[in-house]
């Protein structure tokens, strides 16, 4: 059973992943009926503590909490305040003293959610930590895949882009291998991390090999700072040799789905025709994100029967 926190999918079981996805089915049903004043988390408080900019993840968590009746607080800490000012542990203990039930943290450094979780009674949800994990993004990706394909067994997932710096790629890999899907990755050699093949990913030698017969084509956002850091020469060269166009997509399975955690660089990871094409599930992913986060918050709070003191 799900524990106090959700820090990553590396140490989350397939059963827990499926429990969250199953719970999200009901949540999505309510959402699509436009039922957004639900009682599940009445009397609970969910705080988002973001040390990195984010619109969609933060908004998704906040709406998920609000739709279930929780009170929400948003804290933005500039990334410079990570270096100076209050320590993460002290901030966490302060939020704890105010009786928060759940803290959703996004942080530029891997392991920060774990450090927080070890020092607070509140449940901690990892909303993305450095190059480590982004478990709720992966969960919403899984939800989207399962909705389309019914199960994960034998589903071929191609992940293309900046694997090295991607917490999304890793959380997807960790979960998908437990669920029985096949994961293939492709990126410029400068953006491929060491040892990821030993974690269950197949490393493709070409874009074409990665895409061949794929059921899921997932692009990862290329960040401009990587180009400035010398990891690849230009966006146009990236688009030409590593991006996916309609032509490339023909190599994938006819019924494949196109996914992207957003925000998308149009014309870089995918051409506009791919992003807006009929295979694209990118907007559906966003809706599923709210449902999955509703399910997760609900399950974590259900575990916290006595409220803040129980943990």
């Amino acid at each position, binding site marked *: 059973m799900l524990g106090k926190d959700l820090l990553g999918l590396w140490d989350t079981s397939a059963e827990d992943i499926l429990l969250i996805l199953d719970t999200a089915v009901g949540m999505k049903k309510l959402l699509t009926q436009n039922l957004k004043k639900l009682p599940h988390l009445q009397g609970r408080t969910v705080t988002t503590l973001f040390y990195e900019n984010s619109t969609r993840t933060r908004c998704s968590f906040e709406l998920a909490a609000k739709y279930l009746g929780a009170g929400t607080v948003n804290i933005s800490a500039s990334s410079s305040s*990570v270096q100076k000012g209050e320590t993460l*542990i002290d901030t966490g203990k302060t939020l704890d003293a105010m009786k928060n039930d759940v803290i959703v943290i996004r942080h530029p450094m891997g392991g920060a959610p774990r*450090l927080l979780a070890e020092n607070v009674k509140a449940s901690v949800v990892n909303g993305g930590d*450095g190059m480590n994990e982004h478990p709720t993004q992966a969960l919403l990706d899984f939800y989207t895949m399962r909705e389309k394909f019914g199960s994960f067994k034998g589903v071929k997932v191609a992940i293309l882009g900046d694997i090295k710096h991607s917490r999304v790629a890793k959380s997807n890999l960790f979960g998908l291998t437990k669920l029985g899907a096949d994961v293939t990755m492709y990126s410029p050699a400068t953006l491929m991390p060491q*040892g990821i093949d030993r*974690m269950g990913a197949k490393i493709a030698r070409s874009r074409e090999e990665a895409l061949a017969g794929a059921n899921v084509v997932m692009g990862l956002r290329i960040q401009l700072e990587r180009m400035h850091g010398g990891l690849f020469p230009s966006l146009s060269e990236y688009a030409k040799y590593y991006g996916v166009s309609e032509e490339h997509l023909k190599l994938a399975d006819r019924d494949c789905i196109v996914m992207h955690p957003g925000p998308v660089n149009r014309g870089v990871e995918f051409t506009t025709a791919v992003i807006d094409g009929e295979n694209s599930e990118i907007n559906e992913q966003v809706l599923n994100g709210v449902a999955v986060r509703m399910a997760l918050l609900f399950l974590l709070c259900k575990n916290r029967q006595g409220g803040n003191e129980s943990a």
Partner: protein
Amino acid sequence: MRKILIKGGQVVLPDEVIGADLLLEGGKIAKIGKDIEAAGAQVIDAAGLTVFPGLIDMHVHLREPGFEYKEDIASGSAAAVAGGFTQVCCMPNTDPVCDNAAVVGYIVARAKEAGLCKVHPIGAITKGEKGESLAEMGKMKEAGAVAVSDDGRPVSNARMMRLAMEYASDFGLICLSHCEDRDLADGGVVNEGYNSTLAGLKGIPRAAEEIMIAREIILAETLKKRAHICHVSTKGGVQLLREAKARGVQITAETCPHYFTLTDDVITSFDANTKVNPPVREAEDVEAVKAGLRDGTLDCIVTDHAPHHVDEKNVEYNLAAFGISGIETSFALSYTYLVRGGVFDLSALADRMSAAPARILHLEGGRIAEGEIADLMLADLQEKYVIDSKKFVSKGKNTPFNGMEVYGRVKYTIVDGAVKYQAQ
């Protein structure tokens, strides 16, 4: 000074271990033999104990002046004798940097006040450890410096290091090189590999260390000067050194207990006490470091004792300070992993932890022989215990070894014929 008679111990000599008594008189080892009688001497019953030459650590950080909240010369000296060390050499990355005779003299004076182990300052290679212009090596040597190093801040400019090796040799000083190509390390915090990817922490490739080891080898070889490589952690580094030594290059090297006991599996806990530079590597590196110690490619074991305040470790892994408080665990870890682990025997252990650093830095001591200085360490090798950082004498409690079971408890540390530490 009162005479001391150490009775009934097993004595570790350079080539053998013998049952013998030791008589210490006038700060020297006066006599080694069976059934020594000495009227009026203080008798230490060493039955069941093993007598080693006093351990010598040629790479520690005592943090004074400037960072006394982490450690100071008195607390570091007390930790050293508790760890069985009779001589330590302290790195110059203090505040102010130990790059002039005045700071060297200050350290020497503070160590005398502490009056526990011998503390030998290491001067900076460059002024302010900035890598730009040579520090006053001659004056520092005269004030008591035994070597030069910009430890913690590698000398990135190869020309600067070339000049340093040449100039230092005029004064009989050796450059101790912290090998790290900063461009390749690129702000990494752990070893680059499977575990850095798993944890999402930025990796430091082995090449960052090995490229600079290769540079120092080439400089030492072409200049025909001596050089010493600090804290070797990689298989490739050991191989480069082995080949260089075979060619006759005047190069020596050290490693630390964490490089022959830990793999980077420990970093996935995100425990910042595992954060150290160079980072702990993988199993094949651990094996290579052990092999290097066995065949002498790696001359000696140092601790790189790097005490930090708890607040500097109880933060995000990326923000935590690099370093391990290691001087009180070095002997037990080395004995447990290397002698009990079957890498080599007690004489070799005494060589790597005492004789070798004495040879490299031309220090007195390092071996047990009649007429030698009476720097000794007595340990109970049968005693098994659990490392408990709360009990550290050092101000720095930052260790990745907390809770680990080890063998070999230091019982007495004797410096110049006087007992400076006795286990409770």
